[in-house]
């Protein structure tokens, strides 16, 4: 515990100005983020300087190498004990390097890697004018249906900017769960949100819908960010600091060295409670919890499916990481205040997501509501306020992100003349026509439903167990009821695929390149391995389950 570093804001305020030294930055410990940011910058330079024909290959290469290197760095840090014994707070109190941070960063990087694979897929659509096309618009700036769009398509343009955008988003997500002061948290939030808004807008098919989704996402995201920022301001007013540790100390009443200038407002509980609620609201918006979930179905449906898959997985991981840190590091002293509220949010999220999903007819919207219900399940683990709660949430997030990316990758394969055939009725009889694809999708659906021998069961079991042991049995009961409701629509899709007559003008299943196959294959493998032999990973998560303060 580097208490001295934590109090930098206090100490700089009272120390003479000439004593300010250069900030001490632990570059090695921040290397995962730095690698990804660096690669993103290189990606921008590639857009500027590399010939159009080669950009795709250069971008994919840079992204894959950067993400793999960053993941290797995370593994090296974890192996070096930074997740457990050497965990500490780096970068002058801005970034925590500890178990949860490294675990979540590793998860995000792997999800990002699979995301790059699905972004780079260029074999699903037929070639346009002799050029291979991916899921993204030829030229995002051209008005849909305009002549310039046609010209761009004809010229074989592709929006290779998606790769640096993806890397920027990943960089923000890496910082988000490890941020150790509120300003870093907010910067990270914006760094990963803005690229995502853009990515949502660049679908090649159904461009208007895609742009509408992006605008909605942006507007509502900005709205939520405003709440977050206001919350941060109120918390600063309460504690006189944006540092997590200091706020925690003020909440606990153990703070020392109070600045006389701030003593007037310090310790005003109204500021604390309102600020905490607003900050929590910003994070709940990102995880898609009811009643801040309404962007989810529209955005998931409108965004290009590879973006949806990545966003559904990685955003949730990052946002839950930040929420965990906020509740466990900043506000543990306030848990008797936030627990009942979170209870209520978890309950309406689980039930709301599961119930509304029943009547969905679009596979992407169905998965969106499913992700809302899953946010509720994860919240149940968050509420446990125990080390088991943390580790179960970590495990759940890891398991869930692979299932999600895999499932959305399968969605990209089922196509008809208009692009992806996302209406459920078109999936009827898919099991007869393409048994393998249908079987893989069935595995993902069973994992979503939490059927044993899939990772979904192990995750759900861990989360509910932690919640029950944390005294939230009622929440577990609601969770199980919601799971039962949710099982209905997952199984319904399976029944539709395997036990319905195929439609005559049904969709075709595209044969993907090895990139998407890898994404799907890794998804299935992780789903089954975590389902059949979860113990090693549960142990890993529980080793990583301690926050540094």
């Amino acid at each position, binding site marked *: 515990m580097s208490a001295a570093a934590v109090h930098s804001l206090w100490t700089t305020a009272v120390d003479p100005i000439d004593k300010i030294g250069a900030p001490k930055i632990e570059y090695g410990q921040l290397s995962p983020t730095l690698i990804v940011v660096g690669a993103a910058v290189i990606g921008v330079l590639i857009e500027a300087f590399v010939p159009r024909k080669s950009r795709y290959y250069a971008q994919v290469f840079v992204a894959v190498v950067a993400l793999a290197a960053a993941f290797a760095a995370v593994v090296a840090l974890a192996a070096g004990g930074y997740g457990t014994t050497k965990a500490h707070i780096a970068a002058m109190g801005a970034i925590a390097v500890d178990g949860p941070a490294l675990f979540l960063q590793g998860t995000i990087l792997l999800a990002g890697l699979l995301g790059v694979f699905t972004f780079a897929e260029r074999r699903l659509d037929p070639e346009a004018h002799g050029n291979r096309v991916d899921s993204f618009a030829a030229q995002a700036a051209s008005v849909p249906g305009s002549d310039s769009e046609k010209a761009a398509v004809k010229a074989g343009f592709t929006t290779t900017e998606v790769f640096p955008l993806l890397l920027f988003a990943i960089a923000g997500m890496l910082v988000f769960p490890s941020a150790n002061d509120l300003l870093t948290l907010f910067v990270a939030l914006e760094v990963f949100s803005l690229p995502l808004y853009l990515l949502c807008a660049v679908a090649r098919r159904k461009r208007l819908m895609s742009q509408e989704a992006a*605008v*909605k996402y942006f*507007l*509502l995201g900005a*709205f*939520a960010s405003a*709440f977050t920022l206001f919350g941060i301001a109120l918390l600063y007013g309460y504690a006189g600091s944006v540092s997590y540790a200091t706020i925690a100390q003020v909440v606990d009443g153990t703070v020392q060295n109070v600045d006389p200038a701030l003593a007037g407002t310090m310790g005003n*509980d*109204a500021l604390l*409670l*309102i600020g*905490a*609620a*607003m900050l*929590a*609201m910003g994070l709940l*918006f990102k995880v898609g919890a*009811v*009643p*801040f979930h*309404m*962007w989810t*179905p*529209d955005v998931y449906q409108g965004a290009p499916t590879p973006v949806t898959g990545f966003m559904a997985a990685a955003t949730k991981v990052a946002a839950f990481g930040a929420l965990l840190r906020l509740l466990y590091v900043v506000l543990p002293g306030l848990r*008797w*205040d*936030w627990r*009942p*509220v979170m209870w*209520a*949010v978890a309950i309406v999220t689980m039930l*709301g997501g599961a*119930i*509304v*999903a*029943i*009547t*969905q007819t679009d596979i992407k919207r169905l998965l969106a509501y499913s992700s809302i219900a899953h946010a509720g399940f994860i919240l149940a683990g968050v509420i446990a306020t125990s080390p088991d709660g943390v580790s179960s949430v970590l495990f759940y997030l890891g398991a869930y992100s692979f299932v999600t990316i895999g499932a959305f990758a399968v969605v990209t394969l089922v196509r008809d003349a208009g692009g992806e055939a996302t209406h459920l009725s078109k999936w009827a009889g898919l099991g007869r026509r393409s048994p393998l694809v249908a079987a893989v999708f069935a595995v993902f659906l069973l994992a979503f439903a939490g059927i044993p021998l899939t990772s979904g069961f192990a995750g759900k079991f861990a989360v509910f167990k932690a919640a029950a042991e944390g005294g939230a049995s009622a929440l577990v009961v609601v969770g199980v009821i919601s799971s039962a*409701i949710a099982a*209905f629509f997952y199984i319904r899709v399976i029944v539709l695929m395997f036990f319905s007559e195929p439609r005559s003008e049904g969709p075709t299943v595209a044969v993907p390149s090895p990139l998407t196959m890898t994404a799907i294959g890794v998804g299935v493998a992780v789903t089954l391995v975590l389902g059949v032999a979860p113990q090693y990973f549960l142990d890993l998560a529980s080793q990583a389950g301690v926050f540094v303060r």
Partner: protein
Amino acid sequence: MENLIALLIAAPLLGAAVLLCGGRRLDAVGHWIGTALASASFVMGVVLFADMLGKSPDDRTISQHLFSWIPVAGFQADASFQLDQLSMTFVLLISGVGSLIHLYSVGYMEHDERRRRFFGYLNLFLAAMLLLVLADNYLLLYVGWEGVGLASYLLIGFWQHKPSAATAAKKAFLVNRVGDMGLSIAIMLMFTTFGTFAFGPVLGTHEEAGLTQGASEGKLTAIALMLLLAACGKSAQVPLQSWLGDAMEGPTPVSALIHAATMVTAGVYLIVRSGAIFNAAPDAQLVVTVVGAVTLLFGAIVGCAKDDIKKALAGSTMSQIGYMVLAAGLGPIGYVWAIMHLVTHGFFKAGLFLGAGSVMHGMNDEVDMRKFGGLRKYMPITFVTFGLGYLAIIGFPGLSGFFSKDKIIEAAFAKGGTEGWILGGAALLGAAITAYYMTRVMLMTFFGEKRWQPDADGHEPHPHESPRSMTIPMIVLAFGSVFAGGLFSIGDRFLHWLEPVTGHSEGDSPVSALTVTLATMVLLVVGAGIAYAQYGRRPVPVVAPRGSLATRAARRDLYQDDFNHVVLVRGGEHLTRSLVYVDHTLVDGVVNGTAASVGGLSGRLRRLQNGYARSYAVSMFGGAAVLIAATLLMRAV
């Protein structure tokens, strides 16, 4: 020496595996393999018996721990065996009579093309039955219990091409399920009451009293009644008796071994083995005696009216087991005599069935006694051995049944009080009826004129003596029928042998032993005399006369099947229908209603998702307001 116990079971089990998996290659030698392994079991039993005789009477129990079957925290089930005098008696009876019947079957099943499979099933039965009597805990006993049930099912339905055999097998299986449920419930009750179901801790040993000492009488009565239910199923006692008559559809050696000498006596074994439980539950004991007394009369009455020789003998079996159950219900007064009668009955009833099989063998598988008559000249060995068995079962002085049955009747009187008089009277009456129906069987089969008729294909029967492989077992069993009782009773050998395990007390009889014996003799003569007057002095009609109301009732097994049909089958159907109705309307209604309301709710909530960013923002704003208000409110309260 202990290691022999497992081998005792393993030998016939190996036989069953080899014969059932071996395929057609073994058709030529399969029956000898089966017989050899059954005999090996018997030899091992004899070796163990000799070893046991060499020890002092109180130190004869040996045990073998084979492996831990289900080792779980708080639940320990072992595959271990216990061999004491009681199990030893059964081992010798089962493997001895079993080996003889294997030998007999070699001849009897000679022309059956599925003979190898038949011997496989017989071996399977032996293994399961030995496991049943050698297990040292109730759970392992249950394995053997189900094993003999399976073997019984397979063998009753051995000629499955006959619909009657297939139906009979199914009936036996179903009725036995009721009893088996009783046993499993009893085991569960034991586990919840005592925390274990091993014989040693539950029932106690010489050194220390068992857990039954500390348990409440109510629980013990419940356990005992459940054990009785199990015994009723397996031993064909009222009210679960209906399957035994139909079980005669199986090949005759099966009837002799399983449905006369051994398996049907498993219920008696269970009650005697669980003596410590029954002793502590007098109410349950009273029920046991009532069941025994009712069954001994029921079986005897049914036996009087049957024209099918095997069904007549089946009624007799039921009745004789009723005697045993009656004795077992009397507690320490009767345990020894129950087992002694069980052993002597094993000899003479197996002998009688083998005799019946021999007759059928010579008469084109005819079973109707009205179409026999005068066979003594054609089948002298069968006649003599059957006759000795007949004399033994009716209790002719000096033969086996005389000693064992007499003791039971005495013990019934020794129960004391009104109960003693009623039970003793029933036992005496049973003895008279036994004499009547057995004399009837004897006269109709071996005496009088020939009443043979050509069978459906027009073949005139040519009765002949059976081959040696069949007559030798009959002769050996006849020796048992004649001498076993005397051997056991003179000097109270059997009493001293079994007493260390079962305990014994004399009771307090209001009538002297001599009086009982004399009364029995008189009733015997009366019963046999009536039979002679009806069937010896007058010619037997080939077609059965309509008969009196009582005769017709007895022919229909005293309407037991009709009763079961009306009460259980119809009742069950009604119950099923009403449950289906409840399921369709109430349960499905609730389920479908829930699903419909959730679906409706979903449709309504879905409308909130109207696509307008402004309304989403409003909902977020409202949500944030509620969140903040709730957080503040939490602090306020």
